């Protein structure tokens, strides 16, 4: 897939016909296919319940698809195999809507725990990197604060720093501003904006349409668990090709 | 292993053991319900009574919840005859069980009554409820729901606690087991069967209580 501006990027992630169901039946994802190029910024939009977040959860191995394949750098990922799952989780990082910081650890500890305790990297180097990341998201003075001492926006920025500390190839952002009070949304979006120019692949699920329009290379519109339309922001927002997309964009742009 | 198991012999004593289980049943049934009724009054007294009443009840509760049931049983069993009160072992054990049960239940009930939220009481107040109406429509339903699980649990604990009656010669389940084991020397088999009967008894009790709770009080309780 190519980026806008003519730079051709190799395909990093490919989803083919992903289908998944709820525990009690009912499809949550219906034959979803998508390719993501290296360094690309893809946003997924759509009404609630369209399966956007679920798609991210499938990628990171929290939900098993009943059908379909996921390929990372051309290699098929078998989510049943521990080694494959480990590999995927080494290279993908996710930030959740509900921050999900470890409540029993300080902000700094949250960021350093995985690189030091799980990946066995050198403590001093990780600590430096963690402090730099926390400073970068504006929390240099909150290193030793516990999650319940931080506001939603602050917690989400720690979650972002935590994900970045893993040096992922692909970063998944699952509605990271949806649980925040309006005044905190911008601080988080600013932090994400900063990433846009670093070459890391981003898959963003969001309701913040202005932001999506601004940073994305391509936008995916989903509804009822299926992909409705894919295209550059100009197409999706200004000239949608499908009626469903037109309806959705029409509704949200009315605000 | 120097022991040969004779389960057949042991199982032949099942009727006798079940007779003992029946004694356990009525001992705990009478004991618990009596204790519960007493505890309701005591709990009300503790929350709404005057300072002297509250302190007396507290002393009683603190005393019985911080001393082993066995020791108070010994006190009653050996002590009362010294002052001329001669009760049968069954009555001694029953009285001891009631005193202990009432203490623990009073504690539990008081916690439940205290947990009625101020806002509910205030809402009732603004709707013009009298004290009696408040009790009936706000306190009792809330307390019943909140307390059902802890009290059911106490009942099970109570059944298991009744085993100490055996020490005083009462022929309830454990007492009967003691007797049979002493006569036949098939200790392991007899005590295993006895343990099994306790497990079954408490499972049945839990299940019935859970079902009653679900239907009458709409309380969701776990059986396992």
């Amino acid at each position, binding site marked *: 897939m190519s980026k806008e501006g003519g730079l051709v990027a190799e395909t990093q992630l490919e989803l083919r016909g992903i289908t998944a169901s709820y525990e009690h039946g009912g499809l949550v994802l219906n034959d979803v296919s998508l390719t993501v190029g290296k360094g690309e910024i893809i946003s997924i939009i759509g009404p609630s319940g369209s399966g956007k977040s679920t798609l991210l959860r499938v990628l990171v191995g*929290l939900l098993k698809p009943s059908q379909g394949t996921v390929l990372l750098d051309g290699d098929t990922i078998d989510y049943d195999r521990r080694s494959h799952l480990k590999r995927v989780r080494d290279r993908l990082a996710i930030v*959740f809507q509900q921050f999900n910081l470890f409540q029993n650890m300080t902000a700094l500890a949250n960021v350093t725990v995985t690189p030091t305790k799980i990946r066995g990297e050198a403590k001093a180097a990780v600590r430096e990197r963690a402090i730099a990341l926390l400073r970068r998201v504006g929390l240099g003075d909150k290193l030793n604060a516990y999650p319940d001492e931080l506001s939603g926006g602050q917690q989400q920025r720690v979650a972002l720093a935590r994900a970045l500390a893993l040096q992922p190839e692909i970063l998944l952002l699952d509605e990271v501003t949806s649980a925040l009070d309006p005044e905190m949304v911008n601080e988080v979006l600013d932090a994400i904006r900063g990433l846009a120019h670093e070459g890391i692949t981003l898959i963003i699920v969001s309701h913040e349409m202005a932001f999506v329009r601004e940073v994305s290379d391509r936008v995916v519109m989903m509804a009822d668990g299926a992909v409705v339309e894919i295209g550059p922001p100009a197409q999706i927002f200004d000239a949608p090709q499908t009626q469903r997309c037109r309806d959705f964009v029409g509704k949200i742009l009315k605000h | 292993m120097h022991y040969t198991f004779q389960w057949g012999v042991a199982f032949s004593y099942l009727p006798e053991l079940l007779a003992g289980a029946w004694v356990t049943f009525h001992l705990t049934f009478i004991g618990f319900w009596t204790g519960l009724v007493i505890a309701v009054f005591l709990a009300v007294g503790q929350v709404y009574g005057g300072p002297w009443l509250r302190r007396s009840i507290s002393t009683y509760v603190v005393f019985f919840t911080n001393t082993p049931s066995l020791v108070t049983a*010994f006190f009653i069993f050996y002590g009362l005859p*010294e002052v001329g009160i001669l009760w049968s072992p069954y009555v001694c054990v029953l009285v001891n069980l009631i005193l202990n049960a009432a203490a623990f239940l009073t504690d539990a009930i008081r916690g439940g009554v205290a947990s009625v939220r101020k806002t509910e009481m205030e809402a009732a107040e603004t709707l013009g409820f009298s004290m009696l109406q408040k009790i009936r429509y706000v306190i009792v339903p809330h307390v019943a729901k909140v307390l059902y699980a802890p009290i059911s649990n106490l009942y099970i604990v109570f059944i*298991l606690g009744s085993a*100490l009656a055996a020490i005083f010669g009462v022929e309830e389940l454990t007492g009967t087991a003691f007797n049979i084991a002493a006569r036949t020397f098939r200790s392991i088999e007899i005590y295993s069967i006895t*343990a099994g009967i306790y*497990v079954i008894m408490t499972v049945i009790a839990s299940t019935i209580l859970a079902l009653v709770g679900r239907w009458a009080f709409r309380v969701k309780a776990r059986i396992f």
Partner: protein
Amino acid sequence: MGTHGLSQFEIFFTWQNALLWLRATGITLSMAALGCGLGFILASLLVYLRTWPSLLLLPVRLLVVAYVEIFRRIPFLVLIFLVLFGTRAMGLRMELFWVACISVTVMATAFIAEIVRAGYESVHRTQWESAAVMNFGRLRTVLLVVLPQAWTVIVPPAFSYFVMFIKETSLASQVGVYELMQTGKYFNNIGVSPALSFGTTLAIYFALSYPLTRLGWRIERRLKHRFRRPGGDDGLPTTRVLAGV
């Protein structure tokens, strides 16, 4: 028995007897502490085993559940006798004190396992998920994330169970262990009035139980304000198997 009054007190209030009571108190406390301590360790192991989703371990998980459910429904008195005759039958002639300790351990493991399990369940599923997506693995998740948070829910009931058991050890007197209850009986047998002998027993149990109970309340109050529970989860579907890994 007209020689009550004076001679009873002469028999009772001696330094040797004081030492006897002291020793008995020590035995009572150590039975409870050893049994509950070991029970806690075993219970933690059992609950950890229960989190394993693999089918191979299904019989093990069922055994754990069966163990917990059964040993929470047997009277301590019956259990002590079972352990006594069981160990004798196996040819193990151990001191009655250890028989009692084993009984306490067996029972405490079952009850504390329930407490620990409730502790695990108090930690939100999303904490497990966050750990899983960063490749924590089950053991690390439990040690680094779940247990530190479950602690606040586990300690108060576990502590009060220990305090309760101090009193329950009185039943060990029935197999002849010279703990507090047995000591009271001894004095009653040699002619001291029931009031004095059992009264002393009562007093010592009370002196052990009441302060510890209040300590337990204080611990509970302190722990309540430890970690506020995280917001909530997105309610999104998760395949159990993968989430727990």
